[in-house]
């Protein structure tokens, strides 16, 4: 049961990492756009 829960947590961590990185990229995109306008 513990191993099962640990795996679930690992999955959540990996998925959060992917989504979090995508949000960071959106931030980079906003930064590039802001630099272009200013």
């Amino acid at each position, binding site marked *: 049961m513990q191993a099962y829960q640990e*795996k679930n947590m690992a999955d959540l961590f*990996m*998925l959060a990492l*992917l*989504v979090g990185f*995508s949000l960071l*990229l959106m931030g*980079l*995109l906003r930064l590039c756009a802001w*630099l272009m306008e200013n």
Partner: protein
Amino acid sequence: MNSYGWLQFAFYIFFLLVLVKPLGLYMVRVYQGEKTFLTYAFEPVERMLYRLSGIKPDLEMDWKTYAVALLLFNLVGLLFLYLLLRLQNFLPLNPQGLAAVSPDLAFNTAVSFATNTNWQSYGGETTMSYLSQMLGLTVPNFLSAATGMAVLIALIRGIVRSTTDKLGNFWVDLTRSTLYILLPLALILAFILVSQGVVQTFQPYAVTRTLDQASGSATQIIPLGPVASQVAIKQLGTNGGGYFNVNSAHPFENPTPLSNFLEMLAILLIPAALTYTFGRMVGDTRQGWAIFAAMTLVLVAMAGLAIWAESQGNPAFASLGINQSSGNMEGKEVRIGVTNSALWATVTTAASNGSVNAMHDSFTPLGGLVPLWMMQLGEVVFGGVGSGMYGMLVFILVAVFVSGLMVGRTPEYLGKKIETYEMKMTALIILIPVLTVLFGTAIALLVPAGQAGIFNAGPQGFSEVLYAFSSAGNNNGSAFAGLSANNSFYNLALGVAMLIARYALIVPVLAIAGSLAHKKKIPVSAGTLPTHTPLFIGWLIGVIIIIGALSFLPALALGPIVQQLLLGSGRLF
């Protein structure tokens, strides 16, 4: 190296040169929506795909919309691949009953294939089901390559167009790259590879009785699978992820001299042809040929160095009385030999391919330095499909800007002024991979989890780590071997490095495209620096080499350079 070796090398460059124009011209037609000989067959499929996906092909995007579409598409692909690998034990086409891929390995692999890196912390035949290999890994091989090509085409449109914010439609560029370019080429190559003996089957692994019954292993399992279809696109799409653990050193993945030649040719085919596509689309083919010349000169010099270094043999073996007249054969397939191993190593790291037919860890220090540095140059010497060319265009902007500063001219390239904004983005594009590689290596060497994966002592061990991060941080994917990278630390660290190297560069590249598209075209004047001359080609090579040397020479000195010097005095690691 004997004359046959040089002849093979010359043949390789000759065939590449011959194919650049026809394929380059074909790609121009595809991207400009003109009729080709495949339009009749694929246009209905293309239209059906747009209708099913609700895409309006005529609706053009600005750079931000283009980038968001690209990032979202890649994120969905990443999540899909991650889940597929995690659930492969419940899914069909798994005759060996392979278990689910662990979370950190699934993350690393999903990132690796979505980013066109194809770093492999796993051994294909012991980890991946047939479904994972085909749907999970082969599909991203196509789509990640098409993503790189789409970014390049958007950048070219940014250079060609003026006073607009429209760069084309990402979905159309992605679909056309896949349907009209990658798919037909991959089909042709896959059939040729099958004719050479590359396997393509859904049968379970074969079990055979060995001749050597006395050794205790009376049977041997021979892995099979749908190999040819994956190998074709892994080469053409500069992906590089092997079906089997030893990649193209495996006789079922690369069985004959012809398959070796064609697989090697396929690595550089599209990146080379894209130089012509570029020249044609900007209305001056000399510009494309100049870029092709710059890339070829660096490739030939580096391949020559690698082949020479490996031909010299290993002095440590020579001192044991082992004949080194065939060169350094450690870690190489006897049937492939020194020339084709060293040439492949250079070509696969010049392009962001990463497939191998010999183990780079066993190269002489100088021979191993070549693939390492080829990656560190930023994967612009042909580079990945699309990504190599847009990387090279970024270096051209630097070359134009610096030469403009030196002679007091306004920097311009193909009628577009190069200003502060482009240089800010260029600085980001060049520095991000350098920082990723150097910081990643430093962190891995500092933490116990990173040190635990190192196999050899001294500079060889250092090179193993530097190579891994150079490979991930430039989206190459080849491995030096020796490093035990399938653990949580390396899977996560290299995964993050691959993500940064791919997407944190694509965003500023598209931003440059958007910025250039906004600008007016200025006519050629006496003050315009010609960018197709031998002088500019030399200058461009100089800029690439100087930036590569400034960034990585200190690190290389700690690895292969000091090792080469110590090899002469008999010190081994």
